[in-house]
């Protein structure tokens, strides 16, 4: 049971891991972007469409990344140039993404795409338990495994990470050293959009091999929720994403077992779990978040 649920958690959670890691970077710079949902959708459709046009899923993934980035550029322009409210603008940008993908996605519903194949890691994939859970996935999933420590290292061990955190914690200090917090935020938000785009691409071209309107069904919003849940720490975000999709996997597993629990309770499990853990962890997170971000939610 644990093996199946964890395998499902990784398989279903990867797209959220990508989107969430990107959002961590954006929020570390002091910007919260609910447009992640829209970026994921644009990434999913662009990867699917370009994958079909070119026959090469990797070009599709690149296109998905660019589409997610392009949508977040609209958000960044509104928030950083025009000083619009972040929460409201994030939702607006998600609406834009939903609308664009609904309009242009119509031609691609049900079309076949060249999938991003599963790569079994030689040797490791044969391990009991760990093999299926970790080493029988598509390449983007392995990329997400690498992205977590890489991002952790960048955030805490490099100059870029220092600048990023400074933009979120004390923009004044940054200005003294001649870097503009706004510029850092631009880069951070665009990176976040690109990562969400990759997450969407993973969803459409690796995990489901399908495009349908609003196929993310709110996973972009969940990613933003999980970033706060994770206290802006990459590995905790990964755990959160796996908790969410693990709850979905548990629901499906229990149903397949013929469990007596109501399907409605099982279906609400992912949201209830995230909410409960979020509430339990929030108290000690008062000082964990980027200071500039706290100003967004000041009360």
């Amino acid at each position: 049971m644990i093996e199946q649920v964890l395998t499902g958690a990784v398989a279903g959670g990867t797209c959220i891991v990508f989107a969430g890691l990107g959002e961590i970077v954006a929020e570390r710079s002091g910007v919260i972007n609910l447009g992640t949902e829209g970026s994921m959708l644009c990434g999913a459709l662009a990867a699917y469409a370009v994958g079909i046009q070119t026959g090469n899923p990797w070009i599709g993934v690149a296109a998905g990344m660019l589409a997610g980035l392009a949508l977040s550029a609209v958000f960044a322009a509104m928030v950083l140039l025009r000083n619009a409210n972040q929460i409201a603008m994030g939702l607006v940008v998600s609406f834009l993404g939903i609308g664009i993908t609904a309009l242009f996605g119509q031609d691609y519903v049900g079309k076949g795409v060249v999938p991003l194949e599963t790569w079994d890691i030689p040797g490791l994939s044969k391990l009991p338990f760990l093999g299926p859970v970790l080493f029988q996935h598509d390449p983007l999933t392995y990329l997400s495994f690498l992205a977590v420590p890489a991002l952790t290292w960048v955030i805490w061990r490099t100059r870029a990470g220092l600048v990023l955190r400074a933009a979120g914690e004390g923009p004044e200090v940054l200005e003294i050293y001649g870097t503009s917090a706004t510029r850092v935020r631009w880069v951070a938000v665009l990176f976040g959009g690109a990562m969400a785009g990759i997450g969407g691409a993973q969803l459409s071209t690796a995990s489901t091999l399908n495009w349908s309107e609003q196929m993310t069904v709110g996973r972009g919003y969940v990613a933003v929720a999980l970033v706060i849940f994770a206290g802006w720490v990459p590995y905790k975000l990964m755990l959160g994403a796996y908790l969410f999709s693990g709850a979905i996997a548990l629901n499906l597993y229990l149903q397949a077992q013929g469990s007596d629990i109501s399907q409605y309770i099982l279906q609400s499990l992912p949201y209830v779990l995230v909410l409960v853990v979020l509430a339990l962890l929030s108290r000690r997170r008062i000082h964990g978040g980027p200071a500039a971000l706290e100003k967004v939610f000041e009360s």
Partner: protein
Amino acid sequence: MSRPIRALAMLLGLSLVVALAACGSAESASSGSGGDSKDDGEFTVGFIYVGPKDDFGYNQAAYEGSKAMESEVGDVKVLQAENVPETAESEQVMQDMIDQGADLIFATSYGHLEFAQNVAEKNPDVTFVHQGGLEGENKLDNVGTYFGTVYEPVYLAGIAAGKATKTNKLGYIYAFPIPQTLANINAFTLGAQSVNPDAETITIATGSWCDPSVQSQAVESLLDQDVDVITQHQDCTKTIIEATEAAGAMSVGYHADASELAPKGWITGSEWNWGPLYTDIVKTVMAGDFKDSPYNGDYRVGLQTGDNPFVQSKYGTMVDDETKAQIEEVKQSFIDGGSPFAGPVKDQSGKVVYKEGEQPTYDEVETMDFFVEGVTGKIG
């Protein structure tokens, strides 16, 4: 004004980037039938769908039926609206179609019925036909329902699945426990058990008509239970069939022929062929004969009447001639008046629901609310 202009230019530029990235090379859309709303005397038929019209599923099948009808009837204007929710919003869409001259409206989703009835009451000159519902007490002269006996081909596919399975475990992924789905799951299971008494069906409810990520995980969960044949009742079907094929398991299709997605594991399936029925309904209404036709009521067709709009998909390579012959035999028995639910049928708890020699009416099947013995899963 320079500020707004700058903002405008910026918005335009950025949004075009997004648009271009998102669509790759945009294929040109169908230009549609134009916005001309005057009733020009041409007979106009409106179709509303709950989902997108090219989803490899229920809506695509209905859409293709409308196209077949259009080319068959010829002198007719067709209005289409997809993604029409099953809420009061659909009343507005139907009223819009009437304002654009619609004389006949096909409400193709289960939940559209009540709203079609409401609009029909206010528009006695317009005819409404609903796909899949039962009129109930609100019988109007300009409303009818129609449907096929969906569960008949599903039962036949169940026979093929029961023969094909090596583990004796079949998987069924569905959205919500509506009666139509429950009848399908039961028919599939009974069909399999008729040739393989050990066959059982494991069900998973996804809580959504189309959530591909959950679908692909549901396939994994079923495979983990040693299921080797998977079928479904979802609106978008592609993810499940491809995931099943990739795992080396077998597929039974639903809604549309998806055999090209599963060249190795395709057994058979059930698919819609609405064209002939739609054509006949349209011609009847055009001729002004609706009121006294069988369509003015709950019209049901099945193998017995010979023109079931729900037909068996083609067989995959694995199905042998013996099985095909056996299925033909059962099919003939349905044509002769038999039913997949001919008693004795027991529910999950072992209680007899239909006694020996008994078989349920159409209405009873379409309000079915239990799983038969051999189904794993909980309704509710």
